[in-house]
Structure formats: C-alpha cells, structure tokens
C-alpha cells in the first residue's frame, strides 16, 4: 500500500467483544501525512479498528506499531501522549464539564505556562465555542459538541488523528465545517484516519482507503480505484459494474 516507514502499522489485528469476533486479521499501514478512509457497512468493525488502534479495547491477536514503537499493550492514555488522538463517534466530549474545562483537560499534558494559550487557540478556531465557554458541554448543540471535540484534538498538536464518524447527525453546513477542519489538520501535516458515513466525501478527502466487511479487510488501495469496489463490498457482487 505504501513505501517507507509507516507512522501507524497494524498487523493481523483481532478483537473480540466477549464471544463476538469483531475484527479478524486486519492489517493496515498509514504513512505520515497521509489520509486513509476506513469504509464499510454498519457492523463491519470500523469503530472497533479505531478503538483498538487507540488501545481503548484490547487486541486479542496481532500487533500495532506507532512511529516504529510497539503500542499493542500500552494503555490508552500513554498512546494518547505519543500523539495518536482518537476522536470517538458520538461527540468525544465531557458533557458534565464546561467548554473551557473540556479544553483544560485536553491541554493538561502541556507545561503549565503553555496551557492558557492552547485553550485560547482551541476557542479561536470555532468562535461559537468561545461565546459559550462557561456553558456545560452537554448543553451545546450537536454541531457545537463536534466542534469542541475537534478543538480538543487540536490543542495538543497531534501527529495522527483517528476521526470516527465526525459528521454523524450533523446538518450539511456543519459537515462542511468538520471536513474543512480536518483538511486544516491535513495541510498542517497531521496524519488522518477517517471513518465516515459520507463515502464520496471521504474518498474525496483521503489518499488511501480500506473497506471492511464482517470484521475482515475486503479491499485496500488508492481512493481513485475505490468507487467500484465500494459498490461490490457494500451492496454485493451483482451491483458492481462489469470489469
């Protein structure tokens, strides 16, 4: 899929939720600065792949390397400290904390003298958040919560962002805003793994794609070749155009 040392390298990853095998032998390489779209129908294992890569759920088999280091057994908070950020689906915010406190938590790994500037930077990106800095995050609208989630990711200058269904349930204008923010990250050199329901937007954004089906990788390759494969793997062989 790529040449050179990948920033994120996953090999033969298996994950179980109790008796259910959610991921079965997934391998994926993501080069630094690249954007990779993870696609697949509901229940394919996309979010599980993201949770396993961020070490939120344990891998039952396989290895995960980040920047050449084996992180397969590291706890989630240590993986985060290495610069891998997972923005979970369904608003990655602390609903009981205020907007500012959400950003304070995100910036808590920085030296004290840099925290205030980081929080202000996080608020500047989305002006509507700055106006609601004292409000509980759980009281924000869905779009504002997603902005806060992105803003939380930004305060620490991440190296890799795994964005899980960031556009879920948002109005089209806000979806544009989410993609614009992600593009800003990408332009800044941040590597992005994008899990997304809007397939065409994801393919337009990413350089590479992986399609998951029933916990297995059914196709991987450059996004320009992915359109036909998506029909096949989402809707079955019969729907694919003749090759």
């Amino acid at each position, binding site marked *: 899929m790529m040449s050179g040392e990948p920033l994120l390298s996953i090999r033969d990853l298996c994950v179980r*939720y*109790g*008796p*259910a*095998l*959610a991921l*079965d032998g997934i391998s994926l390489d993501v080069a630094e600065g690249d954007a990779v779209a993870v696609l697949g129908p*509901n*229940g394919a*294992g996309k*979010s*599980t792949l993201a*949770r396993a890569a*961020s070490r*939120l*759920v344990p891998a039952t088999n396989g290895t995960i390397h980040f920047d050449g280091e084996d992180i397969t057994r590291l*706890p*989630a*908070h240590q993986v*985060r*400290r290495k610069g891998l*950020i*997972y923005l*979970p689906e*369904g608003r*990655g*915010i*602390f*609903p*009981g*904390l205020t907007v500012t*406190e959400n950003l*304070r*938590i*995100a910036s*808590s*790994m920085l030296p004290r003298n840099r925290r205030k500037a980081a929080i202000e930077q996080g608020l500047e990106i989305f002006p509507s958040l700055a106006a609601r800095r004292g409000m509980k995050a759980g009281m924000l609208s869905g779009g504002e919560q997603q902005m806060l989630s992105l803003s*939380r990711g930004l305060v*620490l200058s991440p190296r890799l962002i795994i964005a899980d269904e960031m556009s879920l349930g948002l109005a089209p204008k806000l979806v544009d805003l989410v993609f614009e923010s992600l593009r800003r990250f990408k332009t800044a050199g941040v590597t992005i793994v994008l899990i997304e329901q809007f397939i065409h937007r994801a393919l337009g954004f990413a350089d590479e794609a992986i399609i998951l089906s*029933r*916990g*297995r990788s059914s196709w991987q390759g450059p996004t320009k070749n992915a359109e036909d494969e998506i029909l096949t793997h989402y809707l079955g062989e019969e729907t694919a155009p003749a090759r």
Partner: protein
Amino acid sequence: MLGYIFAGIALGSIYAIAASGIVITYISSGVLNFAFGSMAYFLARLFYFLNTESGWSTVPAVIVTVLGAAPALGAALYLALFRHLRLASPLIRIVSTIGVSVALPQVALLLFGNETINSAPGLSPQPVPGYHILGATASLDQIIAFGCVVLVVVASTIVLRLTDVGLRVRAMVDTEALTSLSGINPAVISIGVWMVTTALAGLAGILAAPSNGLTPEGMTALMAAAFAAVVAARLRNLPAAVGIAMGMGILTDFIQQYLPPNSSLTGAILVSIPILVMGAFLVVYIGFSGQTNEAASTGGALDRAIRPLGSDESSTASADKTVVNSRSSGWSPSMLGPVVVIALIALMPLLLQAYWLTLLTSGLAIALVFLSYTMVIGEGGMIWLCQAAFAGIGAVTTAQLATNAELNPIVAAFAGALIATPIGLIIGLLTIRLGNLFVALVTLTFGLLADSLIFTRDQFFQQGIGVPAYRPDFLTGDLPFSYFVLAIFVVLALIVVNVRRSTTGLALAAVRYSEPGARTLGLSVLGPKLLISGVSTFIAALGGGFLALAAEVAVPTAYSTFTGIVWMAVLVTIGVRSIAAAILAGIAYTLLPGVFHTYLPLSLGTVPTLLFGLGAILLAVHPEGAVARNGRRLQGLFGKIGNRRTPAADPATTPTELPEASTTR
C-alpha cells in the same frame, strides 16, 4: 432542646462525612461501597489501639490512622478488588463489597483482639470538655465532629471545583474512556479517590466511637444510616447527601427528646428514622418516575460501547446456556452433580455424632433459606437483601403458632411461610421496574425495618432468649429431623429446577440476559418475577421456620439483615444458580466454624467468617462462583475426553458480525 440539636448536629456530621465518602466512590467508580462501615470500624479500632491501648497521644495516632493507614488500606483494596468491579455485574459489586465488610472486622479482631468496647475516646482530650453555647452545653467531641464536616465540605469543594486534580476526577466521573483518551491515567485517579474516601471512613469511625462504641455491628449499622442520605440524594448528588445527612442527624436527636427514655420502642423508632427517610425518598422517586435505574447514569456512551459483551451477565451467561440445553430432555448430565452431592450428604447423618449432627441439621435448614436466594437471585436476577427477614418472619411465626397457639410445628412452619409470602409479592410488585442497585436498597430497607420494628418486639424477642419452637414428637432427635429437612430440601430443589426448566424459567433467563431484549420479544416481566418473588419468599420463610425448629427456639436477632447479607455472600461465593451450591453452602456455614472451634485455638475462631468474606471478595475475579467454575472445569474435562472420540467444529473460531452478537445481550 438546644442540647439535643447540638447532639443531632454531631450525629448528622458523622452521617454527612460517611455519606460524602460513599457518594464520591459511587460516582467515580460505580461501586456502592457496602464495606464503608467495616472500613470505619477497622480504622477506628486501629486508632483506639494506638491512642488508648498503646498510649500514643491523639495527634500522631490520628495522623497515622487517617493520613497513613486509611489511604494505604484504600489503595490496597482498590488494587486487590475494586479495580475489577467497574465492569462487573451489580450482584458481583454488591457481594464483593459485602465480602470486604465481612472480612475486614475479622482481620481487626485477629490483629487487635475481640474485646468489647462500648465507648472509646474521640479526638478531644479526656475528660471531654464542654462549652456553654446559648445556654446549652456542647461537648468538644460534638464541636470537632461539626468542624470536620465543614472542613470536608470546604476542602472537597475547593479541590473539585478549582484544582486540576478535581477537574480530572470530574472528567472521570463523566466518562472514564474519554479521560484515558485525554492522556490521563484513570487508575491513578481511582486509586486517589479510594485513598481519600477510606480516610473519610476512618475519620467517621473515630468521630462515631465516643457515642457509638467500637463494635463491627454498631459501626456498620451507623454507616448504614448514612446510606439513607446517599439513596435520598439518588446516589450521585453530593451536596444533597450532606444536607440530608445533617438533617437526619438533627431529626433523630430532636425526636428523641419527645420519646420515653429506656423504652424499647424509643430505640426502635430512633434506629428506624434513617430507614424511613430512605424508604420515603425511594417511594417518591418511584412514584414520580415509575422506574429508577442506576445503570443509565454511570459512565458515558463510549464507556458502554467498549464494555465487553455479556460482562453484566458474567455470572449468568454460562448458566443460561445450561437452561436452554437442559430443556430438551428430562434428564441432563448437569443434574448429576447435585444428585451426587445430595446422596453423599444423605450419608452424613448416619456417620456424624451428636455435636456434628446438630450442626449438620442447622446447616440443612440454612440450605433451605439458601435455596430462596437461588430462586430470587439466581433465577429471577433480583438482588434481594431481605431473605433473612423473611426467614425471621417464618421463624417467629412458627414459634408463636407452635408454642402459643399449640399448632403442629410442621404445620406452623408452612403457615408461617404462607403468611410471609404476600409480603414478598408486594415487595416484588413495588420493585419490578427498579434497577438492580435500587432493588437491593429497597429490600435492604425492608430488612432493616423488620429488624428494628418487628424483631425487637418483646412478644418475639423475650429479652433476647426468643420463643421456644419445639419439634413434633416423631422428629425430636437430630437424626430423623435432619432427614426430614433434607427431604424438604429435595422437594424445594425440584420446584426450583422445575421453574428453571419451565417456560417461565426460560423467560426469566431471557429477562436476566437483557430485559429490553425480552420486552421486544413480547415477554412480560411482571408474571415471572412475581412468581419468583412469591416462591422465594415462601422458601425463605419455610427455611426460617425449620431453622427455628432445628434450634428449638426462634431468636429474632439470629435473622438480622446483616446475617442474611453474609448468607448471601457465602452462597454467591459457592454458586448462586446451583442446587448443589445451596446445600454445600448451608453445611459449610455451620460445620466450618464448628471445625475451627473444636480443633483450633480460640483466637482463630473468627477465621471461618474471614474465609467467607475472602471468598466473596474473590468473586470480583471469578464471578460465577466456586461450584459453577469447578463444575464447568469438570464438564470441560469430560468434554475433552468425548471430543477425542468425536471431533467437532469450534463455533468460537467463526467470525461473528457485531450487530448480530449485540442482539443476544
């Protein structure tokens, strides 16, 4: 009157400190710490050992106890037990903390001796100075208690609202998963929270010792009162818990001035106030919302999404497979174990001599009560903590009917069970829409009310000697009586097995595994749960009646709710869904202490209780119980031998699509 209010403020302050500790651990870890009273006792006893028995002055003794030993104990308990409980089922959480509450006082008795201490010095110098305030006298102990609660409230507000540490704690309360995704180690925060709240337990214990004395039971009862404030504050509202705790303390001492002194009724009313407060708040909550479920309020969506499938039902999942398998035929290999166990136990009365036969007979009667837990918790999935109260009602009714009304004792035992059954049905009806933890708390409330309002009545209590409950002539000897009780056990066990294998049992298995899932299938929860409520209450009360006949006296204090909780811990440790476990647990409960008392030094007399507690603690790691675990190993061994003959495919190696698996929760 002001004097009573000062005393009430002091009592309320102790409740408030305890309630703060219980609420903070609940909202940060999801564990309602039933061991809080035992922790308070252990640390207060350590303080007494240092301060009074070893001659240390107050300041170093309190520093070592509250700032040294308490955090160390909290950290040790977290590392050994509490960290396993976040994803455990409510039953395992309750039983494991009860295990600590059983084991910890026994450790204290082993370390410090079992001297009865009716009053111990607190933090003020001795003799305790008094101060005249507005014409009434307040003791320095009372002032210190109030000062401590003010300090705790102010310090915790500052820490939680204004510091980074507090922010991290509040973040973890919101969602632990996202906290770790923010680069913060949740284990470090959890361990810190347990250290602080254990220090609060130590402080509450030391402050309570002057007025409450130093006994495990007294301290546990006092801290149980603090639970009332915690429940009234819906488990999560810290300021409300502190306010209600203070109010409850003042109310208790305010009412006391209008009640006749030295009356058993006065004692009963005072003990009942926190329980009535808890009951009133629960009724209000149930009345307003129709249902109360604590599960929805713990952790965030991400925490629930990453929770392993079936983790909530770890204690029942394997057994549910047994239900499905065993329905296909009249006999299944899983029934072999209980049959062999009962057959071997049936030989024991022939082999044992007088003392041991008496213990065995009591054990068999307790096994009847244990079967009621098998029914209500194992089959019904309802965590009822009042089975001992039902057993007590059965026992006192049996004694009243047999001795005072001269009814045949066996008929009296069955009549007692019938009298208790409607109470169980009403409790079942009231709690049907409640979450597991609230079911446990409502039934705990009922049990404690029965303890304080029913079992303390002179008619039943008789100054502590109880009412005689003589056996019928043909069962006077322990040998025929033990076989009679065993026969009753077998009949009741067959009823339990029959319910398990019936359509009702299958519906209950479905409800246990996923109540919303069962509803989508059109299964009604009401009928099966009411059936279980009634049958289990009948069995518990019948067991209580036979326990009274075994002892030939019904002493109500033998059926206290705390005793029942220990019974439950013992049974769940051995296996809450197993018939064999019920009878083995019953016998172990009486024979093991007998062995220790007979063959080992008197100082080791507390070891069996300690072992029961440790067994319950181990459930955090092995939630299915000893009999189920070893039975499964044996089945696995036989299965391997069978598979060598006929190799079969392993379904676990086939990938399963997640949504399909989710529907089986």
